[in-house]
């Protein structure tokens, strides 16, 4: 029997391939970020492990795996130990519906974009579990900040992600990409709503993924390491991994729903364009990270509630009007 015909086996195989490839790419992305940051700072970055330090992420992971697991005496053991794997799980689970290329998608759900938003919305829970379960005041403060930030930025994230949904008339990411291959990228056409929605989506994704300048939940100069303060070894690695995977997937989703995914004006459509666009966006995120200082928590909230949410509402209305009057 062809294993791909059995739905359960097929799911497992697809999941295995996606997760493995994703983790390898993320490891490289970490290497890339470190090299890039080093260049910005007149340093050389990792050089010793492997050629040009390419095996450095592997060495980091191996080092963290060897470390002793320390569980604080007063910690809520269940919450404390459950939080990191759950965070990593939610971060990786969103990859299921991302169209890497034509017909290259692990699960072409009809509600793909909803799946991504729902799963990444659930990220708030393990983060709060980590903050509460650590029995540490810095972790508690970090957890509170993370929840406030997560809930606030969920709204502009959803509203801006609804713009492509309205414009393309589908919740499936594969449909969205095909629509763009046919009618042009949403960032370019229709003029206005697409690019504004992309900016809001991008900023909200940065906030959701706790990247500088929005990394106040783990602001290490204020809260030591925020929710990660008490974590060691593999759990710490999982928390860090979740952040990177989240950032990377945010880049992929943005590439898919605003930049036409695997399409490049009809020239040789395929996985390579998707990878290129994702890395371009990831490069941009890295660039921002290493040139900005972080906001204060109240300034961050003000940005979401005063600017991003009203603007995204207006953009959503505008794109609805566009579809109503101008068609596609």
């Amino acid at each position, binding site marked *: 029997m062809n294993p791909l015909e059995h739905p359960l086996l097929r799911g497992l195989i697809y999941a295995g391939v996606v997760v493995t490839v994703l983790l390898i790419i993320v490891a490289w992305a970490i290497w890339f970020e470190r090299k890039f*940051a080093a260049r910005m700072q007149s340093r050389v970055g990792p050089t010793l492990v492997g050629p040009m330090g390419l095996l450095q992420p592997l060495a980091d992971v191996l080092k963290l795996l060897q470390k002793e697991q320390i569980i604080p005496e007063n910690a809520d053991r269940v919450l404390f130990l459950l939080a990191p794997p759950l965070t990593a799980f939610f971060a990786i689970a969103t990859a299921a519906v991302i169209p890497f290329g034509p017909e290259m998608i692990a699960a072409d759900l009809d509600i793909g974009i909803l799946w991504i938003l729902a799963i990444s919305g659930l990220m708030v829970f393990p983060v709060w579990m980590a903050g509460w379960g650590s029995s540490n005041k810095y972790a508690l403060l970090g957890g509170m900040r993370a929840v406030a930030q997560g809930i606030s930025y969920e709204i502009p994230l959803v509203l801006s992600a609804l713009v492509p949904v309205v414009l393309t008339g589908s919740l499936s990411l594969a449909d969205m990409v095909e629509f763009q291959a046919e009618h042009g990228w949403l960032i370019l056409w229709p003029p206005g709503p697409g690019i504004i929605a992309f900016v809001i989506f991008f900023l909200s994704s940065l906030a959701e993924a706790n990247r*500088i*300048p929005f990394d106040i939940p783990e602001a*290490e*100069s204020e809260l*030591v390491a925020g929710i990660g303060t008490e974590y060691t070894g593999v759990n710490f690695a999982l928390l860090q991994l979740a952040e990177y995977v989240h950032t990377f997937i945010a880049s992929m989703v943005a590439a898919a729903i605003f930049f036409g995914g695997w399409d490049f004006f009809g020239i040789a459509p395929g996985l390579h364009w998707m990878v290129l666009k994702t890395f371009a966006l990831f490069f941009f995120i890295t660039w921002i*990270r290493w040139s900005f*200082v*972080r*906001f204060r928590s109240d300034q961050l909230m003000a940005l979401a509630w005063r600017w991003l949410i009203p603007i995204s509402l207006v953009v959503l209305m505008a794109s609805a009007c566009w579809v109503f009057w101008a068609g596609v």
Partner: protein
Amino acid sequence: MDAIASAIRVGIDPHLDLDEYDPAADLMVLNFGPQHPSTHGVLRLKLYLDGETIVKADTFMGYLHRGKEKLAEKLTYAQITPIVDKIDYVAPMTTEQGVNMAYEALLGIEVPRRALYLRTILAELQRIASHLLWVATMSIDLGGALGGGTTVFMHCFRERESILDLFEELTGCRFHYNTHCIGGNRHDITAGWPKKVKATLDVIDSRTAEYESLTTGHRVFRERMVGVGVLPGDLALELGITGPNLRASGVDYDLRRDAPFHIYDELDVQVQTEKAGDCFARTLVRIREMRESIRIVREIIDSVPEGPINGAKPVKSPTQFKAKGGQAYACLEGPRGEVGTYVIGGGDNRGASPYRVKFRSPSMHALSALPYILPGHSISDCVAVLGSLDPILGEVDR
């Protein structure tokens, strides 16, 4: 008192014991430090938090106390210099100069002009290095060790390294120089040194605009700094705060102009002041002072007079300098403010050691402002305010 009243914006007396005062307040007590990445060493703050807002802050010092003042009573006058290097480990040059100036005043020893010129140059170079490090650490406090702050940090450290290279060429040490001694300096200017100084200053001068674009010109940086940690001028005077922190609060006071030492009476020092008294004003003052220091060094580096660099008689034994009594106070404008040394003669070793030495450290006075200006701010601002005061814990605890 007006100063105190303006400081206590949230209506809580900074000297009040909150535990007894309001048990129903339901405040969270957070021990901020001594093991915390951004307390600049081992400062400990006891913060009473309402949510993330600081209601009250207590400062605890002494985790880096090494008994330098007591040690100074046991050492002879000539032995003190390498010990005081470790007091302010970010600006050892000025600390060395301060203590040697006090000892020279007590022992009545003239310093030759060449040494005074050299001391002025070293003090100004040290000020540039120290302010560079401040910009670096301030950015890290705001931006974190894994973000934009590190970029500024690395760039500022690159420039600071070049100044340390100059010091290394002159003294053989990058950090704890031991180059000043009673009566002058130990190490004379070498042949190519002034040229290298000018080349280094050119580089730093051309890159100062870069730091400005990353700090004072950066929108997020401004958002974090403007209006945060306002230190009123009268409160600053009352607490004995000196240096850039005082000048940023609108008080026009600089020892280089108002009580000249070295050769500053012959120089026209432009004192940099700002009115706002917030973290941003302190940033502006420090960056401008770097420019001013560059100007001063450029002005005098070529006009260093010939002559001896030490006015004391050649030393036969460490106990040669003796003072049976008397007292002296000398102070200079260090990167952090008034670096003062008060010494009473006539101690151990038949008068070859001082009876008592007191180091006045500007950082300690700066930290004493924290209980007044922290209430009402959030934890994020706490880090910014603490960093903007430029405390060096080695100097605070001595």
